[in-house]
């Protein structure tokens, strides 16, 4: 049984109680910013240990949360930040940092749109927004599961009944 990691971002102060059930088997949770209050972090910690970064709207939380986190768990190197946008002014420096750290997975948020893609042997995952919807997109979150030979990224729709909305399996030999 491989490691399972819950992914959540852009909660903007809204905690969906059903996450307790969805994330009940995860080893830890990654929260990719725009959290909307320390209470959300506390509730995530009630489910599982949580790694969190601040987002552009987390003005108060910047005093206690970093902008970027890099760590390794169960052989996977993970980089977490809030904004990954190729048109963003910071992308040049950020891409240099990411490609020098060579993470296996980059988790980010900000766009409120889920993404699971691979580029230069790095898996980029945006779990979408789990908070109140500001755009005509579904509320979503994600789970990463590492098995012996793959990393499975699953995106769950939180709009009504929780449903698996999208999944993609990345073969591990290319990444880890």
């Amino acid at each position, binding site marked *: 049984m491989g490691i399972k990691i819950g992914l959540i971002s852009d909660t903007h102060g809204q905690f969906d109680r059903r996450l307790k059930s969805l994330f009940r088997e995860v080893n830890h949770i990654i929260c990719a910013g725009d959290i909307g209050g320390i209470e959300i972090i506390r509730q995530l910690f009630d489910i599982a240990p949580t790694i969190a970064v601040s987002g552009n709207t987390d003005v108060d939380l910047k005093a206690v949360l970093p902008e970027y986190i890099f760590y*390794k768990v169960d052989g996977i190197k993970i980089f977490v930040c809030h904004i990954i946008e190729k048109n963003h002014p910071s992308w040049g420096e950020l891409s240099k940092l990411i490609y020098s750290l060579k993470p296996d997975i980059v988790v980010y948020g900000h766009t409120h749109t889920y993404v699971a893609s691979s580029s230069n042997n790095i898996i980029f995952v945006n779990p979408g927004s789990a908070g109140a919807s500001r755009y005509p997109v579904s509320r979503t979150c994600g789970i990463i599961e590492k098995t012996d030979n793959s990393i499975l990224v699953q995106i769950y729709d939180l709009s009504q009944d929780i449903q698996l909305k999208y999944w993609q399996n990345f073969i591990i030999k290319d990444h880890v």
Partner: protein
Amino acid sequence: MSPIDSGFDIKSILPLLNKGELGFIEDSKQRPKQVSLFTVIEATLDEVWDVLTDYEHYTEIFPSVLECKIAKREGDTVFVDYKLDAVLYSIKYRLKHDHYPKKRIDISVVSGDLKSGEYRYDIHPFENKTILIYSIKASATNTSFLLRRIVKKQPTMDEAINISTAIITLNNIKEAIKRRQKER
């Protein structure tokens, strides 16, 4: 103890650090895991060094430090006695600060209510700015029975607490430097 090997040219991340801190968590199966936080300060190396070594004014720099007194100096090593606000009660301990002038400070526990812990500042000047790295390898269970209860329930809380502690410490240092710059 050295900052977690980042494997990149530290100056190359300076523009990113203007947005916020970069945190590294040690890849280790043992606890406590070391965390290292990188930040950039709009100040010269001398200004940063002066605040880091101004133990007589630590109570003004760090709000959680209730008392701070230099016990003795031995060359570049300074022994400092602290009284720290540990939520609901206070703790007393002595730390040894090994100075590597204007490069780094290694800090270790000597005696008192703190049982163990290693801390370190690394300082990298770049033009008129300074990148400061603060590393912590200590368990939060050392400082407060409340934290001890939390960490006992969830050991990984140690890293979360240490990351936040490091950011608060770095912000306290930044604020102190800003105040001194204004006073000039």
